[in-house]
């Protein structure tokens, strides 16, 4: 009998392959739980454009873990970090987070993902009930929005709305002093860029009602060529420019704006300038750019902060980033909470974390607090100042006042319908 069907694998073989495959697959997935060490899983981005986020987060975490383990670990159990790369893809972040808990037996999660990755891990935390500390996502809605509330998720990253309140009030003072009425904005077109710019503009206008935003530009994240943006801004002839571009985008933008001599024509407020990654990389840094602090070892101007920054530099031969201090704070909080709860159990630590205040080199007054109401960090050092092209880069930082910040934040929440 002639076979007129196209050749394919025979039925029997298909079955055998599927069955064999299923058995083979069962092998590696055996959850291992060891009682002596406590495994902490950390999904993060270790490759691609934003690899520095993951590497600097990892560096900071390991720096703290060494200290904690030397002091006895979490309630007597040594910490073992399991750090995995999600390549910046949210579905990978979700898978990695689930794997860390299900396969590797991690009892706690330090979520060092950004943006959408953090939201994806948040859903995993909601599903599995494991303690999860978000360390890098600055999107306010992650903790401010009641729909996102879960008892086991916390955030130790700074919040966009806090930065905008401080930035807006600092800029308003200067705007009033120098008569900067016409402003332009230039921010990357994604949630962080849009939300932060909107909030900054809101608070700027609130503190200095004469201000008018005459031009807005929204380049894409990682866009290489800013020519049309620079020329559009120059055309509009603003007196001041606000930008929340960061990292490589910011240095690219500075290089391109420089050859258009943009910096001589307006005051520039770049919230992410005062980050060592940008400050040490850009070759022709114009003087007098106003910037918020990301991580600067001279602000807060305390010996603890300087010591921490120096220790990081000594160990890793590079400066800490904003992500570094946020992750370090998470570990410090974990250590204190587990001491208070006398346990390394996720639920007990979560209980202890709510409302916990700890001594911290990055605190505005030497301490930071994990606010109980929405489980996010407050009290960390925020300030603005002008940059110079050499150390200490931001010689005078004007610190933001937390009473004002908290009052305005409460108002903002009510406006958004979060309260």
């Amino acid at each position: 009998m002639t076979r007129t069907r196209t050749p394919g694998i025979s039925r029997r073989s298909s079955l055998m392959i599927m069955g064999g495959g299923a058995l083979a697959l069962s092998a590696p997935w055996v959850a291992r739980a060891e009682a002596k060490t406590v495994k902490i899983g950390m999904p993060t981005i270790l490759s691609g454009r934003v690899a520095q986020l993951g590497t600097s987060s990892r560096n900071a975490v390991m720096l703290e873990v060494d200290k904690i383990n030397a002091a006895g670990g979490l309630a007597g159990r040594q910490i073992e970090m399991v750090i995995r790369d999600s390549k910046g893809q949210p579905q990978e972040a979700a898978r990695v987070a689930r794997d860390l808990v299900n396969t590797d037996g991690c009892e706690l999660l330090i979520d060092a993902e950004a943006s959408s990755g953090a939201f994806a891990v948040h859903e995993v935390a909601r599903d599995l009930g494991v303690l999860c500390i978000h360390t890098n996502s600055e999107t306010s809605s992650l903790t401010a929005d009641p729909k996102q509330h879960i008892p086991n998720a916390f955030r130790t990253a700074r919040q966009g709305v806090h930065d905008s309140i401080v930035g807006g009030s600092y800029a308003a003072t200067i705007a009033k002093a120098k008569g900067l009425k016409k402003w332009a904005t230039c921010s990357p077109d994604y949630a962080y860029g849009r939300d932060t710019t909107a909030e900054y503009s809101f608070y700027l206008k609130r503190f200095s009602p004469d201000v008018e935003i005459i031009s807005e530009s929204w380049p894409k994240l990682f866009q290489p060529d800013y020519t049309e943006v620079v020329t559009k801004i120059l055309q509009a002839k603003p007196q001041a420019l606000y930008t929340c571009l960061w990292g490589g985008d910011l240095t690219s933008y500075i290089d391109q704006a420089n050859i258009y001599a943009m910096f001589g024509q307006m005051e520039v407020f770049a919230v992410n300038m005062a980050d060592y990654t940008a400050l040490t990389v850009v070759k022709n840094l114009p003087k007098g750019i106003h910037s918020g602090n990301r991580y600067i070892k001279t602000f807060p101007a305390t010996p603890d902060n300087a010591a921490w920054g120096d220790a990081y530099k000594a160990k890793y031969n590079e400066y800490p980033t904003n992500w570094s201090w946020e992750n370090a704070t998470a570990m410090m909080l974990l250590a204190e909470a587990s001491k208070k709860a006398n346990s390394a159990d996720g639920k007990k630590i979560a209980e202890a974390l709510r409302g916990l205040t700890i001594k911290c080199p990055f605190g505005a007054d030497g301490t930071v607090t994990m606010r109980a109401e929405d489980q996010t960090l407050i009290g960390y050092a925020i300030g603005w100042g002008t940059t110079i092209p050499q150390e200490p880069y931001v010689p005078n930082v004007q610190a933001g006042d937390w009473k004002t910040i908290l009052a305005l934040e409460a108002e903002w929440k009510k406006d958004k319908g979060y309260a």
Partner: protein
Amino acid sequence: MTELQAERATKTLTTPRDDAASKGWRYLDVLIALAAFAVLASLPFLSSSKALLDFVIRCSAYGLFATSLNLLVGYTGLTSFGHGMFFGLGAYSFGLIMQRTGASIPLAFVATLAITAIVATVIGAICVRLKEIYFAFVTLAFQMLIYSTILSWPSFTGGDQGLRGGIPRPVFIGIDLSNHVQLYLFSCALLVLGLLAMRQIVQSPFGYTLRMIRDNAKRAAFIGIHVWRAKLAIFVMAALFAAIGGMVMALFVSGAYPEFAYWTISGEGIFINMLGGVTTFLGPMVGTVLLLILNDTVTRFTDYHGIVLGIVILFFALGLRKGLMDFVVDWAKQRREKGGSA
């Protein structure tokens, strides 16, 4: 004409059979599907590993997607670079319907398929007129356009942060998808049913029409086949199965992200097909399992997964020069021929 097409064209035109024997094959297909489902359904009881179930759920999402892509690439000769747009469309439609309306899951499922069918018909009507590499370019362009739209419409799609807050999973006919094992069984069922349906398509007379078009479209047209209509039909059908894959992924991560509609998903679909082989029906499933295992194990051990993945791809592209299933099938054929001629 590509090498693949040149090879095919030298074979004689295969004609479809619609007699008792092929009906017999169809019953066998159903039996195999039931057996496969039984095996998969038994896994939660044989192993306590949640990660294994997660793995199979992801295989189900990517497997449906890759097999649907093969309907276009392997069976019709339509190389699409933009197939991922339907994966993303399925995920977003399902997610949005569940989040914004109070619909039940079966209703959202059907509605998503309807939306995908409409969009695929419109896009397909424009694309399938084009030949070869230009078809590939225009499908890619459409995918990037859809991706751009998703990003630029934050009030509706959540922009770059995607659909947040989780996808509600109300119970339907006693099935509760927030239970991990039930979600697993649901995904397996969708996978098996989807594969069965696609199998029936390719083994039907229509499926043979597609092969004819792939091998020699001019000849097919001379015989009186409406080439354009057939291509459009399979384009829409493939889109539907890709959308089902997207829905499974949306349920798994409880959300939808713009990455689901990015060209990298299309790229992964193509790799899976190349890894597993485009000449067999189950090639893409084999490729899916391979790629996911590769992805999961490599990221465990090194940060430099690019180098490892690159070398593996080169092994398949330059070494084997064909997908794994193709290789296995050809090797088996050679064995049989050698054995026969002894």
